[in-house]
């Protein structure tokens, strides 16, 4: 039998005015196990707390019930007081007789009766409380950043700056991501490469940063502070440690007809290639789908010209395993495929391009060396039409339901750059709304209109028809003039919606993080915890969480880094002891609990049991990781045998409260 102390607070007159506190203390004093029952004016005051502490020592209490305000107010206060008197803090229960009794009722008799019942329920519960100890789990002082775009690079740099080791896993042969493909950046029009490439170099040279390029995350196990990650280093058939990036192999490679993905397929590269001049790491990679040596076993030119002997046709995928304390997801975005929008003739006409293709067409390192020429006949376009919101803001059946956020601004940028460089070119922008929230953003858009005379027309383009004379007929309605327009354009640029990278969904499953229906990662709280995922130790950086422009991405990347650093500086994490646990003798291993766990805290182990007939049997049983479990209790109801129970809110505790109330 427990030795329980009951302490009834007057809270000045807050409780005492409507609840007869003496009567409550008196009534609860007769409950089984209660050895002392007292009332006091302000239980949370220092002298009130001393009353509790002294009683614990004097009466050797093994349970405490405080009838006072909401546990959300002072549960911690009384738990600390109990702890300082040598009682396990989880042997304290609060009966809420202020917010949920004295403040809502007027009649003293019935309010007192209710307060007594609430007190009895707390006494009944505390009888079944057991001492709980908050566990600690160590933190591995190393972070993993998944994705090497500007978001991943910024996060890695910030974490490295704080002195922690950090690995970047990038699926492409080089880091840099989408920003490396962009020509100029809004709203300042400075060159993207000029601000990005120094960061790439900095990342590669930082002693704390390891870059795993051409690699993918293959498996994630573990939990906050202690993730075990398998990284697949894909075979690039070139020894990274030997290759100097001299580029001789790429010059000599006879297979020159490979679509160049860095230039959006607008020109070709060789089978052995370095994506672009400033690639990091600057190491060649062989594309096995095109390499004649790997396909047919004939050629070997790259190997023979390589002075350092870096070519290795027999290289295979390699799996490395590493421990991390924190993981930052920075998987970024891609423009959507435009196959289903026949009306824009993207697949029919080479002069209908996406905005990202236009970036390459205008880039000095692009296919035309920076001169804007039509892809079809390499002539100078005199009339260019921009179409906004292609695939954005659509009904689910027609495209993406969200606004892609960056298109209004980059289109204004494109229009402006074209008008600046080629004043003889007419530029039309068909828009639904121009959305420019952001510092200096609207001013930027106004400059496109006022200074550069870009024709902004409100109305969506209805149909794009390539004509036999090489012009493109763009049919649209001008909603303000209330007339239908036909523009004979030389080029059409489509602002394709952006979507999360395809690798994000399987990654989310590995990380047991939540995603929304559009495959963007869900933040732990949309307002107050925007860079954390709901899964502890997993942070979100950049466009994997939602469409973002570069400044926002960098801001979020640094915020995610700060959160990760906040975790990495700790030597260990204190866990919430009110977590689920499974009774192995009763567990069926049926996986119901695992299915409802939002945190992936439950795993299964095969355990040997001694049977009553002295044989042993191996059974699959659930095991809860207390460092990951947040204590929601979803598993306890999913469990049919009742093997799964929750510390602090166990089946029998809640049942005893029910019984006490319903008596």
């Amino acid at each position: 039998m427990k030795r329980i102390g009951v302490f009834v607070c007057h809270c000045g007159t807050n409780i005492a005015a409507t609840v007869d506190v003496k009567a409550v203390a008196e009534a609860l004093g007769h409950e089984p196990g209660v050895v002392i029952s007292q009332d006091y004016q302000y239980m949370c005051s220092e002298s009130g707390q001393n009353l509790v502490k002294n009683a614990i020592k004097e009466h050797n209490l093994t349970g405490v019930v405080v009838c006072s305000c909401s546990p959300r107010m002072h549960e911690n206060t009384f738990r600390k007081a109990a702890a300082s008197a040598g009682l396990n803090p989880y042997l304290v229960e609060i009966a809420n007789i202020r917010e949920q009794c004295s403040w809502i009722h007027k009649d003293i008799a019935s309010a007192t009766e209710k307060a007594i019942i609430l007190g009895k329920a707390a006494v009944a519960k505390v009888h079944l409380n057991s001492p709980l100890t908050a566990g600690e789990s160590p933190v591995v002082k190393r972070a993993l950043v998944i994705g090497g775009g500007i978001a991943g690079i910024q996060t890695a740099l910030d974490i490295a700056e704080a002195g922690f080791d950090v690995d970047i896993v990038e699926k492409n042969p080089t880091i840099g991501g989408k920003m490396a493909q962009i020509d100029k950046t809004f709203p300042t029009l400075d060159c993207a490469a000029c601000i990005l490439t120094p960061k790439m170099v900095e990342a590669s040279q930082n002693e704390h940063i390891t870059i795993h390029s051409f690699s993918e995350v293959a498996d994630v196990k573990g939990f906050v502070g202690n993730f075990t990650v398998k990284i697949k280093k894909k075979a690039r058939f070139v020894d990274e440690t030997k290759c100097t990036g001299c580029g001789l192999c790429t010059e000599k490679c006879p297979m020159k007809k490979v679509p160049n993905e860095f230039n959006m397929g607008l020109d070709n590269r060789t089978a052995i290639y370095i994506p672009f001049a400033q690639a990091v790491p600057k190491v060649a990679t062989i594309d096995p789908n095109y390499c004649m040596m790997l396909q047919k076993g004939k050629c070997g030119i790259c190997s023979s010209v390589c002075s350092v002997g870096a070519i290795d046709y027999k290289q295979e995928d390699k799996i490395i395993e590493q421990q991390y304390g924190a993981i930052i997801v920075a998987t970024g975005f891609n423009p959507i495929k435009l196959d289903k929008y026949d009306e824009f003739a993207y697949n029919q006409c080479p002069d209908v391009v996406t905005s990202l293709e236009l970036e390459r067409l205008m880039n000095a390192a692009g296919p035309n060396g920076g001169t804007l020429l039509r892809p079809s006949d390499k002539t100078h376009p005199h009339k260019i039409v921009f179409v906004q919101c292609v695939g954005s803001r659509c009904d689910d059946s027609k495209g993406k339901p969200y606004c892609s956020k960056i298109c209004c601004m980059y289109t204004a940028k494109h229009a402006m750059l074209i008008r600046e460089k080629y004043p003889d070119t007419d530029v039309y922008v068909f828009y639904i709304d121009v959305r420019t929230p952001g510092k200096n953003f609207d001013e930027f858009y106004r400059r496109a209109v006022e200074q550069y005379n870009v024709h902004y027309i409100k109305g969506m383009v209805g149909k794009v028809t390539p004509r036999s004379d090489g012009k493109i007929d763009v049919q649209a309605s001008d909603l303000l003039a209330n007339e239908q327009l036909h523009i004979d354009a030389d080029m059409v640029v489509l602002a394709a919606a952006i979507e999360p990278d395809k690798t994000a969904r399987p990654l989310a499953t590995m990380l047991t993080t939540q995603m929304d229906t559009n495959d963007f990662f869900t933040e732990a709280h949309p307002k107050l915890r925007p860079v954390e995922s709901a899964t502890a130790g997993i942070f979100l950086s950049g466009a994997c969480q939602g469409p973002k422009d570069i400044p926002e991405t960098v801001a979020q990347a640094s915020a995610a880094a700060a959160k990760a650093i906040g975790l990495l500086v700790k030597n260990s994490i204190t866990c919430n002891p009110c977590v689920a646990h499974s009774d192995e003798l009763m567990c069926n291993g049926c996986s119901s609990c695992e299915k409802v766990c939002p945190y992936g805290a439950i795993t299964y182990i095969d355990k040997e049991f001694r049977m009553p007939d002295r044989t042993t049997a191996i059974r699959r049983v659930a095991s809860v990781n207390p460092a990951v479990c947040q204590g929601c209790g979803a598993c306890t109801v999913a469990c049919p045998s009742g093997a799964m129970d929750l510390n602090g809110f166990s089946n029998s505790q809640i049942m005893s409260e029910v019984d006490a109330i319903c008596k």
Partner: protein
Amino acid sequence: MDKNLKEQVLRSSGVNVLKCMRCGKCSGTCPSYDEMEYHPHQFVYMVERGDIETLMHSKSIYKCLTCFACVDRCPRNVEPAKVVEAVRLAAVRQQGNNHMNPNQIPEMLDDDLPQQAIVTAFRKYIK
């Protein structure tokens, strides 16, 4: 403004006009645009405002080819052609107001009037 009329159009078209984001792609894509006084996007907006009668009295309702280009291309699945069709239907239904009264027939009769015309007139207007 006739509220019932708006409800009738919404019901018979099955279209939720509030889904429209006013992009004008329907009008941008419409092959009959120049023939129409009110264009597809205006149909949707005017139905939303309840201004059905204006549409009913406009020739525009007969200019729509029902080619469904707007339905196909509307990014938000608003289906403007169905709205046009519904307004057209509303107009047809109101023709009940100009029913012919059998009492008026005798004075309309003259020797030149073919009998068939009387039968047709009844068939057309009596309902």
